[in-house]
């Protein structure tokens, strides 16, 4: 078929040919670029009644492409519904064959999706069931991962040491630059906020206490957890999701390696080992960041700032932060791996899994932090 640059539209002329026949004349160049002539003229003539046969005259048809095929397929459909015969002899042989091909495979019974909208009650019900199902899956996953930890403790878990070391490096050393940047900035911001308020009372020295306690108890572990959720949790989900798409997880299972031990365990272990270290690192850098602002803005000497900070931080508050970071590490690893293993097998499903892993872990981190706050308050820590 000649692909022309011409943009003209194909022409249709409909003339009754007597004896219940309708003659459809197609002429000009029919190109998709020029749009598809509408079915209305032909449909109108047929709806007028008395038409039993549709014939075609294509002597003036210069060129055609899918535009003609599409219209003729519509005509054929329309005529079939109204018991009008379509005589295709007048069409070019290529068009006739394409039309025959389009009708060669009949629509499969019940294949078409019915687009009925569910009622609100049904949607609430389905939503509830889905929620129940996904919570069950999450609980099951949690249980299985705990069993895997149990097997690890008894030295029976099967995983590659090398994989563990690779994960360890990627969640530890490779995360340092971003943790450095964020922690120093958070420390500086805390110091700024404190400086403005405390200098009103001439209590600038307490900026050191503010920064030290906030970093050590809350900000250090929370900020590292949120960084790691975005950086590593999503990475875990995308990696495991892709492994599911490429059937690598199936291959592991058939070799007798439980994915829970082979894939999830090293990630969980690595993250819960590295999180406290990153948290300590973040605490120190946050305090240094606060110090930069205090010394620069508030006429404190570095020694004053250091001594005040040292006095403010107790071993209890220091260890609560570190303890929380271990829990956050486990939560991030579990939600990342869970979403990855739940992922569907298409590229968009992997994207959804990564998104959902970050959302789940951040929600879990904040909720867990709230529970810790209440707990520590009750226990008077």
């Amino acid at each position: 078929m000649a692909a022309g640059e011409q943009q003209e539209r194909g022409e249709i002329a409909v003339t009754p040919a007597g004896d219940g026949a309708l003659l459809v004349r197609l002429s000009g160049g029919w190109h998709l670029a020029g749009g598809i002539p509408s079915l209305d003229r032909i449909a109108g003539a047929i709806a007028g009644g008395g038409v039993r046969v549709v014939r075609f005259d294509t002597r003036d048809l210069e060129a055609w492409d899918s535009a003609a095929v599409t219209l003729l397929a519509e005509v054929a459909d329309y005529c079939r519904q109204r018991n009008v015969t379509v005589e295709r002899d007048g069409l070019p042989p290529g068009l006739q064959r394409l039309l025959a091909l389009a009708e060669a495979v009949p629509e499969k019974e019940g294949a078409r999706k019915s687009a009925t909208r569910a009622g609100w009650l049904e949607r609430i019900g389905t939503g509830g069931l889905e929620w129940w199902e996904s919570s069950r899956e999450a609980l099951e996953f949690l249980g299985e991962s705990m069993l895997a930890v149990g097997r690890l403790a008894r030295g029976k878990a099967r995983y590659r040491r090398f994989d563990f070391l690779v994960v360890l490096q990627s969640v530890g050393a490779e995360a340092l630059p971003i943790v450095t940047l964020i922690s120093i900035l958070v420390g500086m911001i805390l110091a700024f906020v404190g400086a403005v308020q405390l200098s009103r009372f001439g209590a600038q020295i307490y900026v050191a206490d503010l920064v030290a306690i906030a970093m050590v108890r809350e900000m250090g572990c929370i900020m590292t957890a949120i960084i790691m959720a975005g950086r590593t949790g999503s990475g875990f989900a995308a990696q495991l999701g892709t492994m599911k798409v490429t059937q690598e997880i199936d291959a592991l299972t058939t070799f007798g390696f439980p994915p829970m031990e082979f894939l999830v365990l090293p990630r969980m272990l690595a993250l819960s080992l590295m999180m406290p270290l990153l948290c300590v690192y973040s605490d120190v850098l946050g305090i240094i960041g606060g110090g930069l602002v205090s010394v620069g803005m508030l006429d404190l000497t570095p020694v004053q700032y250091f001594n005040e900070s040292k006095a403010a931080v107790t071993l209890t508050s220091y260890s609560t932060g570190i303890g929380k970071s271990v829990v956050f590490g486990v939560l991030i690893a579990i939600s990342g791996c869970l979403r990855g293993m739940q992922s569907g097998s298409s590229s968009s499903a992997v994207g959804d899994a990564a998104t959902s892993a970050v959302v789940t872990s951040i929600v879990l981190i904040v909720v867990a932090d709230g529970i810790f706050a209440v707990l520590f308050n009750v226990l008077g820590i």
Partner: protein
Amino acid sequence: MTAATPSVTVRDLTMAFGSFVVMHDLNFTIPRGSVFVIMGGSGSGKTTLLRHMIGLNEPAKGEVLYGTDNFTRADPETRQQILRRVGVMYQGGALFSSMTLAENIGLPLGEYTRLTPEEIRQVALVKLALVGLKGFEDYFPSEISGGMQKRAGLARAMALDPEVLYFDEPSAGLDPISSRLLDELILELRDSLGATVIVVTHELPSIFAIGDACLFLDPETRTGRPYGAPRDLLKTATDPQLLRFLTRGESSKEAVKNHG
């Protein structure tokens, strides 16, 4: 539209990754309206050649011409225009997983034609009917089987009525019957659309059934030679590598006689 006009011409094409030469000095011409088979063993560079011909990889040397337009030397806009006359069916279908089948086919139509959304859907339905997927327009690629994904990929490749249709391993992963139906579909489309069809494959039954001409990539000499219709090659070919390939390794003269 005579059979003699070249549709695609490849001149002195050398494909290389860094210093590793995959194939060197390929020369062949594909006549308009023919079915051209690019064959060779696994890893001989068939798919790499296809990628070079559609501009996904850059040749180390040589050029690819569509009609009289030099594709390799063209600037990006001209390339895009040439590619609009080309459709590609990828090995796994390569359907966009976030779109339904109708949306997959409608995507290029919406971009390169001025059709209304209803018209685009109509065209998409016809294309799906052509590949035997009537009624599946609102399915997502992940909801249909691998063979159906391939056929939907073909429907998408045909969306803009291309003059040149590429097929990358059309029968890989299909059962013999589906693969034969796909071969027939390819021939039918070539006949009714008048398109040039270029098939990359190593499936012998399909090579013999559909090829009008072929190119054999020889991994030993790292070059390829064009031949005539594959079904005649069993009698006429003298190249031992090619004979081995065509007879599935039984390349002694007796085996050739038995096949002939």
